[in-house]
């Protein structure tokens, strides 16, 4: 399945809990903000990315988003519906 991850750089304050929970998906850029890595790619990381994920990977990304103290990470399903944070 596909999910879209959006990091709001204005909300991100570099706590890096997402990187600790999900280091294969998130990293910090030079501005100390979380960005989404593209799987098995050397492309530059981005604040906004759609990834093909397994159920287990989706669960881990959800845990990473839940761990953020500023709720800077939003997650969307294939239909573009936001499933975290719950609206």
């Amino acid at each position, binding site marked *: 399945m596909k999910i879209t991850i959006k990091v709001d750089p204005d909300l991100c*304050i*570099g706590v890096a*809990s997402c990187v*600790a*929970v999900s280091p294969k998906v998130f990293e910090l850029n030079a501005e100390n903000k979380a960005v989404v890595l593209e799987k098995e790619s050397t492309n530059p990381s981005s604040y906004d990315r759609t990834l093909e994920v397994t159920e287990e990977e989706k669960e881990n990304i959800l845990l990473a988003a839940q761990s953020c103290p500023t709720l800077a990470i939003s997650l969307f399903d294939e239909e573009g519906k936001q499933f975290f944070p719950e609206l």
Partner: protein
Amino acid sequence: MKRFVIIGGGIAGTTAAETLRKLSPEASVSLIEREEHPLYSRVLLAKYVMGEISREKLFLKKPEWYQKNNIERFAGVEVEKIDRKNHFIATSEGREIPYDVLLITSGLDVNLLPFDLRGICYLRTLDDAEYLRGLIADRVAQGEKSVAVMGGSFISGEFLNIFSHFGFEISLILRSGFWSRSLSPESQKIIVDHLESKGIHIYYSKDDIECEGKEELQSLNFENQKIPASILGVGIGLHADFSLFEDSGIDVGKGILANEYLETNAPDIFAAGDIAEFNDLTIKRSRMAPSWTSAVMQARTVAQTMMGERTLFESVSSYATWILGLDIVFLGDTLREAADDVKVNVSSGKSEELFYRKGKLVGAALIGDVSRRQELTNEIKDN
């Protein structure tokens, strides 16, 4: 059905409750906490005081979340006794709550000044933030300009950001410096120079300060100096209140002592979050790592162990902050006295300090330029 009881409902306790519920839909999970409010982000309190975010945005859980997830929450309640022999805890409400497995995530308390004047404030809880908002509004309305901050660490940095945002004239009183147990004098000077360039008046005092005023704070006295201050933001550290645990025969040091599985000396009792003094495998020594990320990671790990799947806790700790535009990051173990060698690289408003033990990188402090944070975290992890 196993009965899990968690003392403390901050990010560690709530994350542990959430993880336990995910791992076992039928387990009994109870959360006992001093706070009345549902889980909120302490990290965002300063932004709330500054009016950058709404009160609603602070909350990470809605009030109905606990019931929806079948987590029994006792809010505004203190634990008064842990009866290990009979496996129950007694609360300030007079209840006895039985447990099979107990997790302690009760956190740390702020060090207080021995003065009771309106104007002295702390920044640990949402109630502290509400008090500070009211105070600032009053002082602005009264035309008061002078405020002060005491201490040289994260919370004092938060106070400096807040007071600067409101345009106050700020005095900062330091006992020794900024993060003096971690940073070299050169790196501390970068922070001090930065603050002075932003108009902060910095004073040093080895002595205790005297707060003066009639009901309302008016001035501070120290080392034969007197400075006006209608607000004093206090950030002079945290301590663990052990009375409950010592009486229960749970081993304590600076925190509650735990191994690399976050197990205490008492069977079926675990510790996580700010209060845990655990064997940190990433740096190979026992220590406390009070931070948001550590609390989340420890809670997730300990929940698995509590559920019977014994899991090692292994995560490089990190703290990041920002004081009046200056980025500061600490990674891993930056206690200077625990390092064999510290390499300091200072250049024009930036510094990088690398902490080594037995030839291996165990910690890093970055000031002004934090672009190597990820790389250094990986290096500490891989050592």
